[in-house]
């Protein structure tokens, strides 16, 4: 297998392994190239060295919140398109995330079609 095209690669970040894996399977089934991260620091390290076109992240994670990750990613890779997934509807969180500028916002459990469409759109 050849080195995937970074421009077509989707990065996933979630501290919940089963949710992370399920999203990876879903995107794989649709033929996307997927890189999954269980740990925000690992992802941020990756983003520092590599181009990240699209990030799908859970906004409530232990230790560092998804919002914090977004803020730091913004500094590292301002062009990365972000899709936010959250377990809880929270107007304040949504406002903040919107300010940072995610391309899409999903509340778990989410509609798989719309999700795939959003990822596809983000990849351009």
């Amino acid at each position, binding site marked *: 297998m050849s080195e995937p095209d970074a421009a077509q690669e989707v990065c996933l970040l979630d501290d919940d392994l089963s949710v992370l*894996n399920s999203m990876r399977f879903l995107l794989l089934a*649709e033929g996307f190239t997927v890189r999954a991260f269980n740990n925000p620091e690992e992802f941020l390290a990756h983003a520092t060295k590599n181009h990240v076109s699209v990030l799908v992240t859970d906004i409530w994670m232990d230790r560092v919140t998804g919002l914090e990750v977004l803020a730091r990613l913004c500094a590292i890779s301002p062009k990365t398109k972000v899709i936010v997934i959250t377990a809880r509807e929270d107007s304040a969180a949504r406002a903040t995330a919107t300010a940072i500028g995610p391309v899409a916002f999903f509340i778990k459990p989410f509609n798989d079609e719309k999700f795939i469409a959003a990822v596809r759109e983000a990849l351009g």
Partner: protein
Amino acid sequence: MRSERKEPGLQQVDELNSKQREGQLNLLQTITMEVAAAGDIGSALEIVLRRVCEKTNWALGQAWLPNKQKTLLECGPVWLCGRPELADFRAASEKNQFPPGVGLPGRVWQAKAPAWIDDVREDANFPRSAAARALGLKAAVGIPILSGDEVIAVIEFFMREPRNENEQLVKVIAAVAAQLDLVMERKFAAAELSRTNEILHSILSDMGDAVIVADKDANFLVFNPAAQRMFGQGATKTPPAEWPHRYGLYLPDKVTPFPADQLPLTLSIRGDEVNNIEMYIRNQKVPQGLWTRITGRPLHGANGELLGGVIVCRDISAIKEEEFFRAGQSQVLEMIAADKPLHEVLKSLVLLMEGQAEGLRCSILLLNRDGKHVRHGAAPNLPEAYVKAVDGATIGPRNGSCGTAMYRRQRVVVTDVMTDPLWTDYRGLAKICGLSACWSSPIISPQGDVLGSFAMYREEKRGPHREEERLTAIATHIAGIAIERQRQQEMLREREARISLAAESAELAFWSLYPEQDNVWMSDKGRIIYGFAPDARLTCDSILSRVHPDEREKIKAEYDSACAIHGKFESEHRLLLPYGKVRWVIMRGRCLKDEQGKIIETIGVTVDVSSQKQADLQLQVQREEMAHRNRVSLMGEMTASFAHELNQPLTAIANNASAARRFLDRGNVDPAMLRELLQALAADSKRAGDVVQGIRSLVRKDTSTAQARLNLNSVISDTVRLVSTDLLSRESVVSTEFDSALPEVNAAPVQIQQIFLNLITNALDASEGLSPSERRIIISTRSDRGDVAEIAVRDFGSGLPKDRPDKIFDHFFSTKQKGMGMGLTIVRSIVEAHGGTITAENAPDRGARIVVRLPAARGEFEKNKAAA
């Protein structure tokens, strides 16, 4: 014996020549006559000495008599033949006492035979030889005077010339001595008899007991002075049949004349012995009457023939009176014991006392419980006017004898009520009643309370005699017992009334079980509680039949074993009454056993606690309801966490299912990947199920109290994880510091989780408004010596009320805008229901610290000790 001994002497006399014989017979005759006339042995001996000296030319004669102990001979009468110079020898003799065998008298005494000394100056065994030599005494003869085999005297004669033994002379003197013996013996006997008579006479005169002797024809031979006093007159010539009438003799009933043929003297004359016959005597000379106890014996002659009879009578009046007095006291005491009315008892007591002395009148007054007023007690022989005047009077320092005695708590003796200042206010009354002296003693209880007074009245002016003092002491003692007893009875009745009143209002049943008779007594209230008819006969089984069928067997077994082992029993159970009514009761009983340990009675009470029980049950329901609401409300507060917990697996399931379908749609299914997907699906379904299960157990009511052995460290970890989403959303951090040696506890998991959910929520609320870096909660655990698990939850908020940190456990106390203020109250009730404690305090720098201590599960302490 005696005649044999005399005969040789007389024969010897016959052989003398006529002149000698005539002189000797003359001597014998003279001596015999004179001795017979002599008053005593001393003068008889003197006669013998004098006559022998005169007729036979001896210069000196003297007699020796044995002392009382019969160990020595002592000087007796002497005859000096008108020669004063011989007094020197007499003086020498008087200095001597001879034991048997010593000197001439001792030799004769020992040998019981005459002895002749030719010349005393040459005799080795003659201690008085110096005196004899000085006076020229030479020949000597000693003759014994025998009575039977006993030497009663020794006579000795001396003369101035030495002379060989004159056998003839010795025989004559011996014959004279024998004559003397006869005379003296008679004299002795007469003297002895008269002395015995004298003694007997004086005994009979002086003795206190009456002695009467009569011959067999009932003629009085002896009637001593005591008998004359006792029977009122001396011996009379009266036939026995008239004795009872003549002397006033009665049977112990004091009225029936003593049957003449049964009189002790009559019986003893007839030959019968009588012992301790009691007789009452009353006649003109003995009007007050007296008691006597008589013993009689028949008198017999030497040949056993009946001579008459003797009786000895002892005056036992004093003993008898005391006996009657004691019997009277016993009677009064019996009345007290039989709970006779106090007035009857006191009246009997007063009459008993009055019967002990002539002219004595007595009264008893009672002091009211107010300690001020008196009531009439008993005064059967005082005028009614007097009794009425005294009833209701007050006591005081000058209130007659009784009022003053009760006031002073001292005996008051008034010898003349007409002059004594204590009687100033009562003189008129006393005059009407004819009273002069009044002595009163307070009646004092063992506790020292004055109960009343006992008084003696007399018509003559005087103080009490010793006997009257004694009677007073006895009377106050007995009256004290009677009054005290009556007071106690009154108090007992009052207490009983109070108890039964309390029992009625307290839903109490009293009962007694008699297992032997299978009989049960039960109070009226008890019959209502147990649903028995008022007149139904009750048995042990009827009681048991009322116990709820579910508990009947158990209660019966518990009752039997508790009674057998401890002698008492207590149980809380249900009764099922007719028509289906259920009562909750507590039954307590105590067994009364006999000496063999067999239960003769079980007494007890049954308390109807239905209403309390109802209230308890209601309270418990309310408490559970409250706890449940608290849990539901906690769930509401923690929705983010629960939603997240549930959303995660649901999201994964949805994604995985969608992915699998997409792989299938595209037709390029990697079986390994499909398997992986299906496994993930199954795992997430289970995870979702667990979350739902957890929520359900928190919300459900019925499973909340089931206990299990718990490791609190893991319960805390689970709880923190459960609320992690909320912690994130509130930007708070919970850190844990676990003691790995924390003992396990026995507790209901849901309730323990509820404790920690509440404490964390509470800490989160307290952290609101702090900067995110301060929103920290520290949960630490610690083993306290292995038998207590201690959990502390601390925050860094504004802390607790300074004055009373534990106020936060009160109902409805809240510092927060939202919430009911019930959370911590519920936490405390859960902790306490688990036997633990909860305290709240302010941490040293800031914030609050709440400490929960729960007892370790059984066996934990030992386990931890072993591990250490």
